[in-house]
Every structure is written in C-alpha cells, then in structure tokens.
C-alpha cells in the first residue's frame, strides 16, 4: 500500500470516527426522546430526523454548505470559536455524521423501545432519579442498539460521497476520503486499478468495523442475557 493510499485510508477512518463520536450523544438523546416521550409535533420531528436518509446526498451537502460554510449563519457563529467546517476534514466528518444520523437513531430507538418501561419504573421506586435510571438501566440495556447504530453510521460514513464532495469538495489529504478518492481515480483514464485497490481496502475496513461491533455486543452483559 503506497503512502498516498495509507493517507487516504487514515483520513477516511478519522472522518468516520469523528463523525460517529460527534453524533453519538445527540443520537442517543434523540432516540430516547422518540422512544419514550410524547409531544405535539413528534411525527414531524421524526420525519425531520429521517431527512438525510430520504434526500439526495447532494442536496444535504448543499444545505450544509449554506448553513455551515464560511458564509453560512452557523459557520460564521462558530468561526471565532475556532471551529471551521468549510474545506476541512471536520466538514467531511459533519457530512458523514449527518448522513448516518437517521440510521443511528433508528437502531438505538428500537433497542430502547425494547426495554420494558416497567423496569425503569422499578428503578425509580428504588430511589433512582430519572437521570440515574437512564444511565444505569436504559442505556446499558440498549447497548446492542447503540453498537448496531454505530456500525451502520460508521459504514455509511465510509461510503459517503455526494454530501461530502458538494460541501467540502475533493481536497487531497483534507477531504479526499475513500469514496472521493475512488471516484477521482475512475475519472482518470487508466486509474481503474488504483480505484479497485482502494475499493478493496474499503471492504476490509467495513468488515473490521462489523467484527468490532459484533464483539462489542457479545461482550456486553446486558445483551447476553437480554430476551
């Protein structure tokens, strides 16, 4: 594997990981709200969360450009804080996180809905506050959903193209993730071989992620004994 290829691989893993890490806390929170709470406009909120799944990735990329670009309202707000997304790997991570978010939320929500609310009740009667119940009961019992959702989101991030290239373009070493690099190679006459190599690495990376996710689920005490 050439130095360039290693760089592309590492960048992709960095971007996908950062995207996942950033989307886990809000993903868990949103999943919990959707699983347990009732409120006016819940259906609308649910639909909104699923938008990145339904919209063409290029559209999502464009929206990100409008909001988080150097001229965008959120981009301008974050710039003095040192947080820049435009043309940086952080932008690629953001695109990956957004595109994978609905998958993350769905999987976690499913797992949380499978947790008997009466068990949470039992914990409360034993003296646990709502927050404590969430962290000591709900979350541990949802670990399989979090692992699955995380894997799906990570895999989606590894394959993210449309939103990334539209939002932060195809900068080698900065935003040229695996899919973008593969695409670039296919655009050059005779670049097929290299494109294939990168595609192979992509597959291996996904398999590794899958194996890790399975291992995580298997060793968690909750899932081993979960119904």
């Amino acid at each position, binding site marked *: 594997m050439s130095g360039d290829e290693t760089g592309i691989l590492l960048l992709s893993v960095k971007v996908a990981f950062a995207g996942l890490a950033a989307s886990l806390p809000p993903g868990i929170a949103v999943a919990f709200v959707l699983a347990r709470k009732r409120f006016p406009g819940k259906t609308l909120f649910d639909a909104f969360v699923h938008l990145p799944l339904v919209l063409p990735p290029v559209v999502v990329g464009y929206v990100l450009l409008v909001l988080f670009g150097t001229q965008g309202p959120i981009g301008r707000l974050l710039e003095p804080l040192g947080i820049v997304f435009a043309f940086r790997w952080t932008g690629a991570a953001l695109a990956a996180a957004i595109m994978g978010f609905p998958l993350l939320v769905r999987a976690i929500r499913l797992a949380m809905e499978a947790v008997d609310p009466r068990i949470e*009740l*039992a914990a409360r*009667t*034993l*003296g646990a506050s709502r927050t404590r119940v969430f962290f*000591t009961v709900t979350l541990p019992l949802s670990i399989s959903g979090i692992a699955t959702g995380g894997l799906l989101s990570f895999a989606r991030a590894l394959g993210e193209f449309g939103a990334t290239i539209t939002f932060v373009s195809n900068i080698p070493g900065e935003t040229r993730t695996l899919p973008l690099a593969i695409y670039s190679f296919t655009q050059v006459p005779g670049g097929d071989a290299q494109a294939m190599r990168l595609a192979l690495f992509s597959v291996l990376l996904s398999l590794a992620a899958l194996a890790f996710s399975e291992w995580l689920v298997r060793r*968690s*005490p909750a899932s081993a*004994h*979960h119904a």
Partner: protein
Amino acid sequence: MLEVDVAVPRGKFRLHAAFSSDAPIVALFGRSGSGKTTLVNAIAGVVRPERGRIVIGERVLFDSARGIDLAPEKRRVGYVFQDALLFPHLSVRANLAYGERLTPPAQRFVDGERVLALLGIRELLDRNPVSLSGGEKQRVAIGRALMASPRILLLDEPLASLDGARKAEILAYIELLRDELRLPMVYVSHALEEVTRLADRVVVIAEGRVIAEGPAAEALSRAHMGALTGRFDEGAVIEARVATHDARFELTTLAFVGGELVVPNLDALPGEPVRVRVRARDVSLALARPSGITIQNVLEGNVVSIGHEFGAIVDVHLRIGETGLTARITRKAASNLAMVPGSRVFGMVKAVSIDRRSVGFA
C-alpha cells in the same frame, strides 16, 4: 398508618378510592381491571391522581390541595411487581444493592443479612437474574425492594406468574416477612386464597370503587362476591378460633359464631384466631340432618338468598348463626328441595376440602 383518598382517571372510568389501615398487611382485593393496580401505582407515585391525599405515617406523599406530589424516587415506597422485573444486566447481588446504595446511610434500617436469611437468597448472590426460576426471581425482587429500606412495601399480584408449588413457597415467605419485619405491606390480589392467608384487613375494589373495607371475613363475606372472585373461587371466609385437637385422628376443631368446623390437623395452639375460606363448591345442602355419611361438618342454618341462576348451577347463601356461608348446587336440586329464603337447611362441608391453603392466621 396508611391513608389513601384519591380520584384517578383511568381510561374508560375513574378510580375513586378511600381507605386507611394500620394493619401489618392490608389487601386490595378485586377482579382484574377493577383498579387495584392503579391504586398502588398512585401510592408509588407512578400514576398521578387527579386529586386526593396519600399519607404514610406523618409523611405526605401526595396532596393535591397543597400541591404536594413527591417523585417516586423520593417516596421510599418498595414495590414488588408481578413479573419480578429484576435488572437483567446486573447480578443478583447488584440488583439487591441497587436500592440500598441510593438510600442515605442514616435512613437504612433494614438488616441485609437478615433479609438474605429470611428469603433464602444468599446462594443466589452471584447468579444472573435470567438464570433464576420464577420463585427465585420473586424472592430476589422482594429482597431488592426491602434492601432500599422502604417505609411500606407494595406487592402487586406477586404470585400471579408462578405455578402452584412456587405460589405456596412464596406465600410462606411473605407470611414470614409479615411476622418478622415490622414493615407495613399492601398486598394486591384477585385470589381469595392469598388474601385469606395473609390479610387482617381487606379493601374490596370493584369497577374503580371501594365496595367494602374492614376486617377480612367481614369485608369478604358479601353476597355479591361472585362477580369479584370468579366462579371457581366463590366462597365464604369464616373467622374462628382453634378449639381442640384430636391427636388420635389428627383433626382440629375450630369454633366460630354459629358452630364448629372440623378440619385436618392445623399446626396452631388452642385459642389462636384463624380465617377459614370455605369454597362454595365444597358445600352441599340437606333439608334434614343426615346420618350415616362421612361428612364431618353439618351446620344448621337458614337460607338467606338464592343467587343468580346461570345455567345448571345456582348459589345459595346461608346464615349459620352469625356467619355467612355459600353453597353451590344444581338448579335442579334447589328446585326439587323447594328452597326459598327462610328455609331451614343444613350446610355440609367435607373436612378434607379445608386444607392448609384455606387457612390464614391472624
């Protein structure tokens, strides 16, 4: 002293219940869907009444007039569910410790060792809840609730998902707890047998209302009990005292207001008060005192009323002295014997039909 007076909206109807008790166990008795679980949920703080008041001792848990509504975690109310509901991701040890750890040391009064011993769960400590049997789970669930040093223990049909042998086992444990710990309990059940065994005080609930409240036998021996217990369980509860033992034939005689009952040997001292449940299907009737039969208990009394006639069966309510008794017979028999309210009859109860499970000790 537990005082409850609440109105709770519930789906199609509204639960409107008021009762108070300082008995060791008060039973909430009624059919499924009558509102018993809603009531304990209100006591636990899981369900919020529309208005009312819930007080345990000097501690006000809920008072709509004063805007008090303590969160469940602040009520110190132990809750044992029908399905145990142990935390599957924690060991038994961790399950037991869960509530204990959340209780400020100053407020812990339950002796952990004693609870382990009383419930016989020490050897289960390192097991995982999923691998436990139904009975073991329920014992751990009781232990878990106790370890949090609750001021009152609520048990919502704790035996409902257990089979016959387990039921008896856990029932015995609960009796033991009632006698050993000085912890008030509220026991919810639709099973007459459990209520008879455990409770000195019974609150009968039907369709969201308290229709009877008081000492067990009194509250339970109402004519319209049939609708509450289900046909099989229809019967009467008689308050009696142990009179004598027959060592030779291993029988015990119980005395009640109106007569005597002979039952297979009861492990109790003379003078001890007991509650005896006599199922209607175990009572036969005769117009004249029969002779040359095996039945030990022939009780003279009068017909008070003849109950609803469903199909081939009819319930006849009798009065034996001051005590009520119900006999379930065929409509044909009732017709042939021309029974009407006021008729003099003899109620016959096979001694064998009254076993340990039918007797509760006060």
